[in-house]
């Protein structure tokens, strides 16, 4: 099938890209280069579009129906599963906060882990939040950004969806360097993976209207996905070229002149 070759090619590009981005991360960390903020760098668009169609078919066949079944669970149960999955992310987020030079966030994430694992019964509950202990959601993709790595090319990864090269490397490193491997027994890790799946299904159900409108109701779901992912990820990272970055002036002769400066 055509899909399969595209996916294989996609994987190859992803692997190649990952290596490249990692190298690039260190090179540009030294060079300290800045990133253009509104550009879309998608040289393998034709292949990516095929992977997008594949991912969409996975959503149609598996993810969407499974998420509907999952949403039948009572809310408190779902929340418990989410809490459990989120809690297991905290050691990695603590490490990333440290690598980013954010000691406050590292302390917050570590404290949340300790409190929720003990008082919160293995992370099923989130008493830390009620106690006002706030952490900071993060990942190695953000760490790479802080270190000055370039975003790299955009693409879709089979089963994972939209990613920039930098964030794909981040995902790989987050899995490989997860400190959880050292501190929790393997049974808990298995439960953690199950909870992770549950929380993905829960998210798919919770944001179903938004996701459906992008994937199934837009005229070009590929470009809508790309736009949404890049804009939101850049927003999360604070990767903006200035406060007026999002400004499109519809009263100018060419409204996208500044915005699209590619």
């Amino acid at each position: 099938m055509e899909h399969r070759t595209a996916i294989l090619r996609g994987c190859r590009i992803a692997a190649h890209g990952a290596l490249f981005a990692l190298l690039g991360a260190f090179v540009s960390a030294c060079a300290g280069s800045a990133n253009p903020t509104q550009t879309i760098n998608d040289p393998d668009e034709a292949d990516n579009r095929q992977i997008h169609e594949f991912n969409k078919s996975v959503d149609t066949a598996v993810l969407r129906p499974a998420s509907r079944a999952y949403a039948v669970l009572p809310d408190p149960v779902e929340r418990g599963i989410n809490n459990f999955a989120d809690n297991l992310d905290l050691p990695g987020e603590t490490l990333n906060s440290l690598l980013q030079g954010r000691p406050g966030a590292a302390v917050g994430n570590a404290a949340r882990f300790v409190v929720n694992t003990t008082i919160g019964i293995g992370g099923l509950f989130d008493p830390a939040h009620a106690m006002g202990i706030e952490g900071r959601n993060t990942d190695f993709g953000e760490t790479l950004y802080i270190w000055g790595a370039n975003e790299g090319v955009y693409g879709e990864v089979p089963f994972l969806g939209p990613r920039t090269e930098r964030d794909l490397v981040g995902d790989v490193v987050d899995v490989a360097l997860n400190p959880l491997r050292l501190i929790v027994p393997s049974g808990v890790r298995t439960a953690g993976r199950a909870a992770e799946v549950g929380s993905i299904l829960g998210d798919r159900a919770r944001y179903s209207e938004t996701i459906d409108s992008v994937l199934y109701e837009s005229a070009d779901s590929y470009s809508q996905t790309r736009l949404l992912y890049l804009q939101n990820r850049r927003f999360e990272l604070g990767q903006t070229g200035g406060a007026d970055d999002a400004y499109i002036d519809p009263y100018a002769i060419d409204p996208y002149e500044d915005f699209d400066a590619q």
Partner: protein
Amino acid sequence: MPNDLPFDLRPSRRTVTMGLAAGVAAALLPWRAQALDTGTARALVVEAVAQVNRTINSGKSEGQMYADFERLFSRYADVPAIARTALGVAARSASRQEISAFTQAYQGYIARKYGKRFREFIGSEIKVIDARPMKSAVEVISTAYLRNENPFEVRWHVSDRSGRPAFFNIIIEGVNMLASERAEVGALLDRNRGSIPALTEQLRRAS
């Protein structure tokens, strides 16, 4: 920015000069930054949100709500500017009638497309927290509180270059509505082989 209208002309000036100056100013008006103040822009957003909430909580039928949303959209947003921007370069070669028919159809399409998501906003609250001048508009910064969700940031770009204060863009957690709309309308236009009348017809029928 100083007000460019000749309101401060001394009464000793001849009315002819005044009339002439006013005429020139009126001709230039759409092209001038009118220095919309942040207070007015804030008030516009607060009012628009309150009106939308009123419709959502009114218990009206969906059809009636869509009509309300369309009316509110045309009152608080600069729909012609949004429609023109969504159309992109294609707008340049289109006739005035084509643009106006497109704008009309687009207005209803937007009201239905975003209006059908109204359930997500039941019991929600949008709090305006700040406003600041931008290049030639005002950015109103607000936080949205939806049920079962972490609060998120919504930014509104407001201008009075249409002759009245109106918003022309909404940015939700970095996601730019005008940019998404342009991508979407561009793709729809491609499907209609670049024909704006065909696109207009499709938008009119789209639920």
